[in-house]
């Protein structure tokens, strides 16, 4: 890690040129949705929206895996962590996402065994080192993280590690895009597809989607130049009427994706219907562990039941489908803060409400006094 490989894509001059080019070609109003929560945060963090013409409205999509993980799965994770002899491992993002009653951090404080890891392979190693514990990895994510889960299960099988399983909440991007497009109230004119997802899956599914729904899609990265280039390509298509798929992230994404990652995914997972928090159950929009590797499925191992979702006050569904912006939610900055989230989009580092809160809340409520920020931080 000797040099910042992204630095060429943060060059202010290039960014300015791309911004000018977008202004030059834009003649009418367009609603463009960036799918990925990472992109939403990058847009807010770098102030990219300030560089766009007023005709372009960015809508922030459902591409934060933490945000769309169903409450019932979080409840199961919390319940498992409280079982004797079970250790629940997961990524840092998932620790503070509220379930029906508790999040995993609270479960940990109450004596639950919860371990934050950076890779499921670390959880597997932990299982190997602690044969008396049942180690469950709470696996959330899109196609980006799917290959590492597949690899971990294949590794567990190869190393004959039997005290390891996965609690899955795994989702696929294209079915969610299709659900958004088929909504009669849909207002999306074009998409920025998530570059890292496409690095795994390739672009074939997106081409089919674009043809079927006559919507332009630009596969886009996460640096300022990447984001503006993706927007530029999308607007170019919309302005010219020549609908299709562009690759604005060609240094990472190939048309066919990562064949070896796809092979591992197919080996371990089958497509399945999946519930998305806020959006409901979408057909074929998720992945489940297949019959061959079912012994690694925590749902089966612990005979977990999926409870009916309890309606909550969070407007995640409307926000993640672009029907309202975070600041239009009546709870935003009034009852819902990162310190007291009422829904996942306010928790995750990729959540859209968290992005608006962290970087832009002053733009929408200048008179609000954010006293919750006044918590004095103890000095070191």
């Amino acid at each position, binding site marked *: *890690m*000797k*040099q*910042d*490989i*992204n630095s060429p894509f*943060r060059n*202010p001059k290039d*960014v*300015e040129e791309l*911004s000018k080019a977008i202004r030059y070609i834009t003649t009418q109003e367009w609603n463009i949705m960036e799918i990925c929560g*990472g992109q939403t945060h990058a847009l*807010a*963090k*770098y*102030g*990219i*929206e*300030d*560089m766009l013409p007023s005709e372009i409205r960015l809508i922030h999509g459902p591409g934060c*895996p*933490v945000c769309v993980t169903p409450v019932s799965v979080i409840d199961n994770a919390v319940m498992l962590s409280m079982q004797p002899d079970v250790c629940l491992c997961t*990524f*840092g*993002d998932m*620790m*503070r996402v509220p379930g029906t009653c508790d999040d995993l951090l609270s479960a940990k404080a109450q004596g639950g065994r919860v*371990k*934050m*890891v*950076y*890779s499921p392979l*670390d959880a597997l190693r932990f299982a190997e080192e602690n044969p008396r514990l049942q180690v469950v990895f709470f696996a*959330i*994510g*899109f196609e*980006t*993280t799917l290959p590492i889960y597949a690899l971990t299960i294949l590794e567990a099988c190869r190393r004959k590690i039997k005290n390891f399983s996965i609690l899955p909440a795994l989702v696929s991007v294209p079915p969610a895009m299709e659900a958004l497009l088929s909504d009669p109230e849909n207002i999306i004119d074009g998409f920025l597809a998530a570059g*890292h997802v496409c690095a795994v899956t390739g672009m074939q599914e997106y081409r089919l989607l674009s043809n079927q729904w006559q919507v332009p899609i630009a596969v886009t990265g996460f640096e*300022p130049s990447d984001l503006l280039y993706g927007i530029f390509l999308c607007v170019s298509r919309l302005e010219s009427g020549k609908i299709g798929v562009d690759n604005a992230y060609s240094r990472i994404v190939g048309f066919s994706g990562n064949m070896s990652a796809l092979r591992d995914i197919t080996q371990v997972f089958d497509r399945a219907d999946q519930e998305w928090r806020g959006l409901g159950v979408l057909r074929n929009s998720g992945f489940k562990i297949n019959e061959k590797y079912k012994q690694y499925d925590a749902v089966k191992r612990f005979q977990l039941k999926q409870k009916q979702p309890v309606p909550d006050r969070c407007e995640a569904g409307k926000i993640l489908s672009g029907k309202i912006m975070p600041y239009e939610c009546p709870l935003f900055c009034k009852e819902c803060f*990162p*310190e007291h989230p009422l829904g996942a989009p306010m928790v*995750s*580092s*990729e959540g859209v409400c968290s992005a608006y*809160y*962290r*970087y*832009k*809340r*002053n733009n929408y409520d200048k008179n609000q*006094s954010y006293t919750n*920020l*006044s*918590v*004095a*931080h*103890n*000095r*070191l």
Partner: protein
Amino acid sequence: MIKTNPTQICPLPITDYEQIMLAHGGGGKLTQRMIEQLFFPAFNNEYLGQEHDGAVIPVREGRLAVTTDSFVVNPIIFPGGNIGDLAINGTVNDLACCGAVPMYLTASFILEEGFSMADLKRIVDTMSIAARKAGVKIVTGDTKVVEKGKGDGIYINTSGIGIVPDGIDISPMNAVPGDVVIVSGLIGQHGITVLSTRDSLGFETEIKSDTAPLNGMISDLLAAVPEVHVLRDPTRGGVSATLNEIARKAQVTIEIDEALLPVGKQVSAACDLLGLDPLCVANEGIVLVFVPESQSEKAIEVLRNNIWGRNAAVVGRVSAKGHGTVTLKTLYGGCRIVDVISGEQLPRIC
């Protein structure tokens, strides 16, 4: 592990342990022995040598600055230092940021049964060296031992006393519109070093903690630029938490410029990878300085002449009276809020 001699038959009490035993905190002979053989030689000075219930130290005229701090870092040894460096430098820097000349420190150790005696010696030796470098004396202390499993190896508390010279008035309340904000060094070095050393993350960097005693540099600064308004070391919560605290206390708006922030390439890359903001990452060897704009060049010159201030840079300004907000001008001319993190920074999934 106990050192035994197989030929020894007389069951004399064993006193030479390689690990901390509960009896080391019992107040008996083992405690006494540890104090005499480990702490006294390392921290040797006339006040500690009084062997009293507390240290009796002469009082000078002027104002006293007092601070206390507890250190629970995990891992206890990391590139660039260990918990002992932090325990001395942290308290010294807190005193220096009050405008004080740090003088005397106390040191309390909470040790877990089974903790390695060799590691304890290493930490105590480090504290001795750090105290000498900072020009402070450890004048009294305490040791307690908790049962195995009821601590995390070692916790250290240090308290400190310093003298604030006449004419020096440093306080977060003093930040006023027209001040510039200076950062004395690269940000985020300590936090990323500690994160990268934790097993659970397991990525490698060549970054070292920036832990350092800043009292010498701050003393030079105050001698050359007596109009310094605010000094703060942005430790836990990073630069963003400290700036927000100052903005709120002084009821001002602080604007910083992303292009001017000194961030090392490795910290920047690690933060990108983990989804962290360098502004929210902990530091242990830098100070934020607020001075009137007319004094900023002189302040930068003095800081850069010091080994710990070579990367000092003006990063922003106090723009107006306000409601205690901190904003950042992005590299591309946009503007965003600089927020305080909610709880611990959690690495992201993708």
